[in-house]
C-alpha cells in the first residue's frame, strides 16, 4: 500500500509546535516514551515497547564451523525485519533503503562494538563454534525503530541461555536443557542507541522522535553508547550540518538516557530471573494486563469427549461407503507410474497427435489435466530414448496400456487436424509418420545405448 502523504497543514502544525518547544504527546524535548519489556517462556525471547513502537526479539544458537579467517571465534548474525503489520507501507519490495540502513546500524552497534565475547563461543577451535542468531521483528511502527530494536537485541542477548557443551579430547557432548542448565552468553557491555531528530536545519532537537516527528525532521543523529559512557557507534543522516558542540551536547544527553535505560533493562531481567526461580508464572500470558478491557483470559477448560465415539460411529454408519478406488498403478517405465486416469482433457484438436504418441508408447505420468497434452506431445521424444515403451507382453509382465485418455477424448474437427498439428509443435511433425517409424527409431536408439 502506498504511504499516505503528510498533509501540509499537519507538517506546519508540527514544526510550529516544535518551535514553541511543544510536542504533540506532551513530552519534553529530552523525554523518552515509556519503555516496557516483557519476556516469553523460552530463553532469549522478548518484546520491547517504546511508546507504541513494538519490537519482538529472539535469539537462537547453532553449532557450525567457524569462518576460515576467524577460526577461534563464534559467529554473530543479526536480522531486523520490518513486518508488514508494522506499517501499511512496508511491503516486501518497498522497504529496502530503510531496512538496509537499520540493519547496518544494528550490526555496527552490536558486532563492531564487541559487546558479546565471541571467543567464549568457540567449542573446538577451527571446527565447531556457536553461531548466535538474533532475529528482530518490528511489529508496530510509531517512530524510532532503531532505539527499540537495539534495546530488544541487547535484552534478548542478555536473557538468552545457550546449551552447555563439554569437550573431552575429540568428543564434543551437547547437553539438553534437562541434563544441564543452559549457560548465559558472556556480555561485556550493553550498547544502546539513542536517536536525536533535528528540525529547521539543526536549530531544534528532539530525543526519541515518534512517527509524525520523523516525517517532518530534517536529519537524524544516532549515538550508540553504553553505561560506561563509551560511544560504540555514531551516525548522522539526512544531510544536516551539525556544530561540534551540538554533537557533544547530544552525546552528554545520550549518556544520561543510556544510564536510565540500562537500569530499566537490568531490573526487568532481574525480575524475570526471580520469577523463574521461584516457580511463578512467566511468559507473555502474564504480561497481558488484566485490567484492560480489550484483554480477556480464560483458564484451562476441560472438554467432555465421552460421546465422541458414539457420534463418530453414527456419522460413519450414515455415510455412504467410499467409491471404489482404482489402486492398480500403471507402470510406464521403471520410475514412472500412473495412478488413475486424470481429467478429461479439453484440448480436442491435439488429440490426433496424442493417439500416435500413445501407440508408440508415450510414457510420462500424467499429473495435471492442463499440462497433460503438452507433456504427452513433448515427452515422446524424451521417452524414445528410454527403454521400455510398452507393448503388452513385451517384457513378460502384464502392463495395462491404458488408452483410456483417447476413449474419453472428443474429436472436434478431424479433417482440420493434420495441418493444425504440424504447425503447433515440432515433435508432432515426427508423429505424423506412420506409427511404425517411431518404433523403429526407438529400436535404433536402444541399440545405440
Amino acid at each position, binding site marked *: *500500500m502506498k504511504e499516505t502523504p503528510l498533509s501540509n497543514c499537519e507538517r506546519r502544525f508540527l514544526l510550529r509546535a516544535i518551535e514553541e518547544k511543544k510536542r504533540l504527546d506532551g513530552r519534553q524535548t529530552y523525554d523518552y516514551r515509556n519503555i516496557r519489556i516483557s519476556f516469553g517462556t523460552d530463553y532469549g525471547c522478548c518484546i520491547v515497547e517504546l511508546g507504541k513502537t513494538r519490537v*519482538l526479539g*529472539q535469539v537462537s544458537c547453532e553449532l557450525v564451523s567457524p569462518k576460515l579467517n576467524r577460526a577461534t571465534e563464534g559467529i554473530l548474525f543479526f536480522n531486523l525485519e520490518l513486518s508488514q*503489520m508494522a506499517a501499511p507501507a512496508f511491503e516486501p519490495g518497498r522497504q529496502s533503503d530503510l531496512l538496509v540502513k537499520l540493519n547496518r546500524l544494528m550490526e555496527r552497534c552490536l558486532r563492531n562494538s564487541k559487546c558479546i565475547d565471541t571467543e567464549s563461543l568457540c567449542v573446538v577451535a577451527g571446527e565447531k563454534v556457536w553461531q548466535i542468531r538474533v532475529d528482530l*521483528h518490528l511489529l508496530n511502527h510509531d517512530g524510532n525503530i532503531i532505539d527499540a530494536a537495539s534495546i530488544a537485541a541487547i535484552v534478548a542477548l542478555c536473557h538468552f541461555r545457550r546449551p552447555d557443551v563439554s569437550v573431552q579430547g575429540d568428543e564434543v557432548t551437547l547437553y539438553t536443557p534437562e541434563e544441564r542448565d543452559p549457560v548465559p552468553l558472556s556480555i561485556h557491555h550493553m550498547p544502546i542507541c539513542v536517536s536525536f531528530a533535528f528540525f529547521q536545519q539543526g536549530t531544534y532537537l528532539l530525543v526519541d522522535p515518534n512517527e509524525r516527528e520523523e516525517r517532518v525532521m530534517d536529519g537524524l543523529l544516532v549515538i550508540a553508547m553504553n553505561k560506561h559512557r563509551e560511544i560504540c557507534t555514531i551516525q548522522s543522516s539526512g544531510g544536516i550540518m551539525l556544530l561540534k558542540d551540538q554533537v557533544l551536547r547530544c552525546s552528554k544527553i545520550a549518556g544520561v538516557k543510556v544510564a536510565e535505560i540500562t537500569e530499566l533493562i537490568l531490573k526487568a531481567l532481574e525480575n524475570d530471573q526471580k520469577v523463574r526461580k521461584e*516457580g511463578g508464572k512467566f511468559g507473555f500470558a502474564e504480561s497481558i494486563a488484566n485490567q484492560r478491557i480489550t484483554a480477556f483470559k480464560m483458564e484451562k*477448560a476441560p472438554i467432555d469427549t465421552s460421546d*465422541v465415539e458414539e457420534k463418530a460411529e453414527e456419522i460413519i454408519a450414515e455415510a455412504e461407503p467410499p467409491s471404489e478406488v482404482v489402486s492398480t498403478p500403471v507402470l510406464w517405465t521403471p520410475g514412472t507410474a500412473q495412478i488413475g486416469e486424470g481429467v478429461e482433457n479439453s484440448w480436442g484438436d491435439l488429440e490426433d497427435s496424442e493417439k500416435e504418441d500413445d501407440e508408440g508408447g508415450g510414457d510420462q505420468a500424467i499429473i495435471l489435466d492442463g499440462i497433460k497434452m503438452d507433456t504427452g506431445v513433448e515427452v515422446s521424444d524424451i521417452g524414445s530414448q528410454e527403454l521400455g515403451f510398452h507393448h503388452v507382453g513385451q517384457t513378460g509382465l502384464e502392463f495395462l496400456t491404458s488408452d483410456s485418455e483417447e476413449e474419453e477424448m472428443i474429436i472436434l474437427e478431424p479433417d482440420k487436424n493434420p495441418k493444425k498439428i504440424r504447425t503447433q509443435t515440432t515433435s508432432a511433425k515426427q508423429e505424423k509418420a506412420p506409427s511404425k517409424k517411431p518404433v523403429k527409431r526407438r529400436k535404433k536408439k536402444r541399440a545405440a545405448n
Partner: protein
Amino acid sequence: MEEETHTDAKIRAENGTGSSPRGPGCSLRHFACEQNLLSRPDGSASFLQGDTSVLAGVYGPAEVKVSKEIFNKATLEVILRPKIGLPGVAEKSRERLIRNTCEAVVLGTLHPRTSITVVLQVVSDAGSLLACCLNAACMALVDAGVPMRALFCGVACALDSDGTLVLDPTSKQEKARAVLTFALDSVERKLLMSSTKGLYSDTELQQCLAAAQAASQHVFRFYRESLQRRYSKS
C-alpha cells in the same frame, strides 16, 4: 503418553504459565486474547494458547494493486512470518490454509476491488500453532471490522499410538502418531478446513472431528465473552 499427575508441582520444563498437566479427559490450555494492541493496523489481536502465542494484524479493506485486483470481491492475502529465520514452504502452505478459511467466511463481495491483508507473526510456538494462527486471525478480523458471515476457530488434536485423543496438544504431545487441525465455523460448527499429518483411520478422523466440534464451543464462548467485555456498557 506422558505420565500425568495431579499434583500442584509446577513443572519447569513444561509450560511457563505453570498450568498443571492436563488430566485424562481432554482439556484446552489456558487461553488469553488481547485486541487492538497495535496502533498502525486497522485491527490486531494477540492470541495465546498455553505457551503458544500468535500476533495478528489486519489491514483492510484498502487499496489493491491493479495486478491483484478482483472485479467483484476483495483480494484476501495472508502472510505468516516465523520467529526465527526466513519464511519457507511450511509457512506458505499454512498461509494458503488460513487464506482459504478466511475466504470462506469473509464477505468479500461487499468490498470489491479492495485488499484485505492479514499478517501473522509467530511469537512463540509450543504446539497447536496452526490452530492458534486461525484464532488470532479471526479475532483480528473482528477487531478490524471486516464483515464476515461467521466466526471461525482452529482446534488441533493429536492421536497417540494407542488411539488416545489429546486436544490442543503441546509440542511434546504433537510428536504423536497423527496431528489433525480443523477450522470450524461458529454458525453450525461446520468444517471449513482440515489439515492433517500422520496415520489415522476414518473412525478416528470422525472422532477427532466430533471432539474438535465440542472444543470449538468453548472457543466460541471465549470469543463471545471477550467481545462482551469489550463492548458492553457495564
